[in-house]
């Protein structure tokens, strides 16, 4: 049983950052920078001691020759992650002035570093335990559930992020729906288009180079440029055909955003679909045909099931990319979480930036996790044992 060097290294790094950086800050109002609070000042001796003890014991356990050390570490790390929101709550209760209605608490670099390093520890421990996807899902639900519960409490109301959210819950949910509709609408449309294009490329090999060339050309152009380049032709179109205007198609807004997102999504989608369908070994198709399958049966029973995981992988890449690009599309007035980001940047209101950026990241991670799981569950045949 070799000692694990990764976890102690991570724990040591976490301890250094945690004691060196600010865990959070108290601001008198939205714009004025606040006063930072380190670990000790934020949590007091008992809290700081507990956090330190947990990190030290994770590092020590990793070095100890215990049989179930990774399981114990996994439990410790997940508990620490699940209870992490208690730290800013404690900070607020200790330092927030009672008579200042605009005062707010915010999260500091120390908190983010701790969150990041705890996640790394979780990844490492799960990797060593060879955790299956159900355990991963269960832990994820446990941590997310505990966060939701803790955020419901009053203690975190002063958190700047919550303040920003509570100031505009309607706008937030509208941004969420816009973001989802744009990103996943683009993914769905491009999936259908890519499927058709890939089939065309298979039937007529002469089309392979032009189609792949065109979609990878589109992918090379930076998003801001594509959004920008679409404005002039689309506004010209909508000026020329008024009925387009009544549909909401203008130089700015959702129409150019959706078009650009589709254009971007085509490359990974077409490439994966094409590769997946053509990589089905010819010997298998030959066997199927020789047994009396017609081309339709071959496609539905052999090629499609074998290609599906790779195609879903294409959808995964595309979905992550589309979630990120939708945020950029806010620059041309498409809405979504990007609107909070750029509005916040314009007003120098960092908490508004966070309110846009964090959900964007969360959406991308969720899409990644869900589609990875879907692809894995569609891979029915286990590899040779």
């Amino acid at each position, binding site marked *: 049983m070799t000692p*694990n*060097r*990764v976890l102690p*290294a991570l724990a040591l790094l976490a301890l250094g950052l945690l004691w060196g950086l600010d865990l959070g800050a108290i601001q008198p109002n939205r714009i004025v920078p606040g006063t930072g609070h380190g670990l000790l000042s934020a949590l007091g001796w008992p809290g700081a001691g507990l956090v330190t003890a947990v990190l030290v014991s994770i590092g020590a356990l990793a070095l100890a020759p215990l049989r179930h050390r990774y399981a114990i570490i996994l439990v410790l790390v997940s508990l620490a992650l699940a209870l992490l929101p208690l730290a800013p709550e404690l900070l607020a209760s200790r330092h927030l002035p009672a008579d200042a209605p605009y005062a707010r608490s915010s999260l500091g*670099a120390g908190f*983010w570093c701790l969150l990041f390093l705890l996640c*790394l520890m979780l*990844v*490492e421990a799960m*990797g060593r335990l060879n955790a299956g996807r159900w355990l991963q899902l269960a832990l994820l639900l446990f941590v997310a559930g505990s966060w939701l519960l803790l955020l419901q409490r009053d203690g975190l109301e002063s958190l700047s992020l919550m303040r920003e959210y509570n100031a505009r819950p309607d706008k937030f949910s509208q941004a969420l729906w816009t973001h989802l509709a744009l990103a996943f609408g683009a993914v769905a449309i491009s999936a259908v288009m890519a499927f058709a294009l890939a089939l065309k490329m298979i039937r007529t090999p002469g089309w392979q180079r032009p189609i792949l060339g065109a979609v990878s050309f589109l992918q*090379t*152009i*930076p*998003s*801001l*440029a*594509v*959004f*920008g*380049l679409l*404005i*002039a032709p689309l*506004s010209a179109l909508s000026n020329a055909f008024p009925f387009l205007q009544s549909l909401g198609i203008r*130089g*700015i807004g959702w129409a150019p955003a959706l078009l650009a997102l589709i254009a971007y999504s085509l490359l990974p989608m077409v490439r994966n679909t094409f590769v997946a369908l053509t990589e089905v070994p010819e010997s298998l198709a030959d066997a199927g045909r020789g047994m009396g399958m017609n081309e339709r049966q071959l496609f539905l029973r052999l090629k499609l099931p074998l290609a599906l995981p790779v195609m879903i992988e294409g959808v995964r890449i595309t979905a*992550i990319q589309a*979630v*990120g*690009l939708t*945020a*950029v599309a806010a*620059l*041309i007035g498409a809405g979504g979480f*990007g609107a909070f*980001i*750029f509005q*916040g*940047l314009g007003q*120098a209101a*960092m908490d508004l*930036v*966070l309110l*846009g*950026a*964090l959900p*964007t*990241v969360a959406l*991308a*991670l969720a899409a*990644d996790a869900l589609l990875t799981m879907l692809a894995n569950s569609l891979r029915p045949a286990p590899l040779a044992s």
Partner: protein
Amino acid sequence: MRLWFSPLLLLTLLIGLSTAMPVLEPLFQWLQPDKQSVVYERESFLFLLQNHLTLVLVSAAVGTMLAVAGGIFATRPAGRDFLPLVNQVASIGQTFPPVAVLALAVPALGFGEAPIIVALILYGLLPILRNTLAGLEGISPAVTEAARGMGMSPLQVLVRAELPLAGRVILAGIRTSVTINIATAAIGSTIGARTLGDPVIAGLVNGNTAYVLQGAILIGLLALTTDSLFEALERAWERRFTPQFAN
């Protein structure tokens, strides 16, 4: 020589357009008759191009060094323990949208070029790291074993066998990274960096389509130039390191 033709052509076009944009004023006037100013003049395009490129090049250079060093460390016996974690981080990290990384850098580092450089380095490092690991791990053990068996030191094995063999994959990672960073640096205009994104943002704010167009065309050209440059580099690398069989 034919290899370098298209990057050179695109580069000439890029620099030419950046210098001679005011000459095209009548064209933009025709496109946008209702505006007084139709050519972006707050900064010269050449300056913006230069600044944009500097940001990307600095972050690519630093990112490449960090990523290749990290990749080499994680594949040596001393760093093997870290390999699974580094692998996971490289792939999960790429899930983060670049614009969100950029936005998150601002609260930590403030406005200006510092957060951009840091965001570009951190984000650009991931594809390079991933490809370095894939390239080094993809080398057949027979090759490294043979090299060691012939009496090469570990350093010689790395420099003479592993890096040349993994080079093309690493180069492809740098290409991905630079492509993403050109796009991210353009968005960096919103947090106070002077890049070719400036005219686009200014145009969007003022409803001036001509500005948007000028910025967008130059950003697109920059991306295409860089991409074709990498295409040529990859081909050249292939010629240099892939044996040509005599017929």
